[in-house]
């Protein structure tokens, strides 16, 4: 394992408080000692290491920013970012598990839930006694979530849900799903959030198989067929597409840190390989074309670190805007993906085997570049910000 500071070219370490560095180091050690020894097998088998979930909870990695009164760690967004970075240095699937639980399940319950919902679910989710998932995307509605066809209809003092959600991380291992559906209110459709427990009748899940990416992560489809839930399962303060988008802003923020972790893992591997692999008369790191690739990788990592760090401080100061998150998610994931591809190239044939982490991160980042707002969609969001003109429709 290369030294951490080798990838901290602009000394971003100095921006961090003693406590932030400590949390980062704890997450780093957890990944090195407990996760990395098993990731190769998980990715080969296509399984998520469920046995590590209690450890994630014990260390306080689920609900990092959730107040302590609800069982969270009550820490800053920079801390959450640093944990995301270290988890994704392990694998995007590990980071996604924590992202979904924290940003897409605990955050909406904390933000849109009733006091009873918060008191019941948040401590359980923090302790991993309950696992959650987030159902927004549908088979035919990805980049345009507002077009969703999943519906909730008032019935028997509750709601009847119908529809299908797809590409749901943790879907089939979750105890509760945060499901977004259209509900008719005063003659018009409003997107609302609902909590659906796994035992509800009419709620079925199935895994999406055949993935070549995110193999150490559970991805599912969730089907609701006349699935009845009580009135109390509505997230009362949710209303409109803005609600799920607020959740995604939280998750995308974490992803913009996480991608750096994946890039660092590949960069460290590529530097080590380039220094030791000899071709013709000397290490391949001595050749200009290989050096140019390594320079691009370190430069992109350094830029991404500065974006993520600054975004984190803005977020903690309550000044972060969603379009700023779009820039960090778009840039950090797409440059991380580019970095993994360059690393793959430097490793030659070895770059395609799972003896090295590179191909696994590369394949994962193909997903990360698409989910939570594709690179193109974030570009259009920023295009609209700059010009005031929407290019979506």
């Amino acid at each position: 394992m290369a030294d951490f500071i080798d990838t901290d070219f602009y000394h971003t370490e100095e921006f961090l408080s003693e406590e932030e560095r400590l949390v980062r180091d704890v997450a780093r050690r957890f990944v090195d000692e407990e996760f990395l020894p098993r990731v190769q097998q998980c990715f080969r088998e296509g399984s998520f290491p469920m046995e590590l979930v209690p450890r994630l909870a014990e260390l306080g990695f689920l609900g990092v920013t959730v107040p302590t009164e609800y069982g969270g760690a009550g820490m800053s967004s920079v801390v959450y970012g640093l944990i995301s970075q270290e988890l994704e240095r392990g694998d995007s699937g590990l980071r996604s598990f924590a992202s979904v639980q924290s940003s897409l399940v605990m955050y909406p319950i904390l933000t849109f839930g009733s006091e009873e919902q918060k008191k019941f679910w948040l401590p359980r989710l923090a302790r991993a006694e309950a696992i959650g998932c987030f159902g927004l995307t549908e088979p035919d509605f990805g980049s345009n979530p507002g077009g969703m066809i999943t519906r909730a209809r008032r019935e028997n003092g509750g709601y009847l849900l119908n529809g299908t959600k797809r590409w749901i991380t943790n879907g089939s291992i979750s105890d509760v799903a945060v499901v977004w559906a259209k509900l008719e209110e005063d003659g018009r459709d409003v997107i609302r959030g609902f909590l659906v427990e796994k035992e509800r009748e009419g709620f079925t899940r199935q895994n999406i198989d055949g993935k070549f990416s995110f193999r150490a992560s559970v991805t599912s489809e969730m089907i609701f067929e006349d699935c009845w839930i009580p009135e109390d399962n509505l997230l009362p303060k949710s209303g409109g597409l803005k609600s799920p988008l607020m959740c995604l802003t939280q998750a995308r923020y974490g992803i913009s840190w996480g991608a750096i972790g994946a890039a660092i893992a590949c960069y460290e591997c590529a530097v080590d390989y380039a220094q030791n692999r000899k071709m013709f008369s000397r290490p391949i790191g001595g050749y200009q074309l290989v050096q140019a690739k390594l320079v691009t990788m370190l430069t992109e990592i350094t830029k991404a670190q500065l974006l993520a760090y600054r975004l984190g401080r803005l977020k903690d100061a309550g000044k972060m805007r969603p379009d700023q998150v779009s820039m960090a998610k778009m840039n950090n994931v797409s440059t991380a993906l580019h970095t993994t591809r360059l690393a793959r190239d430097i490793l030659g044939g070895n770059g395609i085997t799972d003896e090295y982490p590179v191909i696994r991160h590369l394949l994962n980042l193909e997903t990360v570049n698409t989910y939570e707002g594709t690179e193109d969609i974030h570009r259009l969001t920023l295009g609209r910000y700059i010009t005031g003109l929407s290019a979506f429709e």
Partner: protein
Amino acid sequence: MKVLVTVKRVPDPETTIRVKSDGSGIETDNIKYVINPFDEIALEEALRIKEKLGAGEVVLVSIGDSVVTEQLRTGLAMGADRAILVGCDQDLDSLAVARILAKIVEDEGPQLVLMGKQAIDDDANQAGQMLAALLGWPQATFASEVVLSDDQQAVKVTREVDGGLETIGFALPGIITSDLRLNEPRYASLPGIMKARKKEIKEVAAADLDADMSPRLTINSLEPPTQKEAGKKVETVEELIGLLHDEAKVI
């Protein structure tokens, strides 16, 4: 039961150490520091003793300038109750460290002092033994197992010695220094880190302790170990034997 645990700030063992060109020390720019790994093991043992008894206090002590609070805070986040920082900006040899610690022990009155067997920076392996001598306390070094008696008045310590294990016992108070296999230290958790914010780090000036800190050792120079040369692959056993005989001259 009160347990005092010593904590030294040392360069991370995973850090690449570079010796200054004039040999006066190591380059400290961009070096990450951690709790000396053997001290971390000592702390883990202290925490386990406290958890087993369901009562007691684990007190950390470190000597150095204010940057050492980072390691003390880490120890507090792991679960220690409070910490003492002995402020001192001069380099200390093992005897000076032991003399300062003896003053702290007199002041705190712990039943047990748990220390790392050595610090991984200078590898002196002396402070524990010297502290025992200064206090006139029994000591067990290189501990791989510590068992407290039911009445909490004595300990049995298994030590890793050449050729095997030795078990010794003594009445408390006493000093134990930890070896690598004593336990696997826990990580600080986020809740632990939050709790550590409110824990006390008491600052004491070394100069006020009336301990003799005059140096008895001087470091003349440091030099990096010679670079290891790459190995050779041989095709046959005969070739290997030939090289061992002619080149390495070991057979």
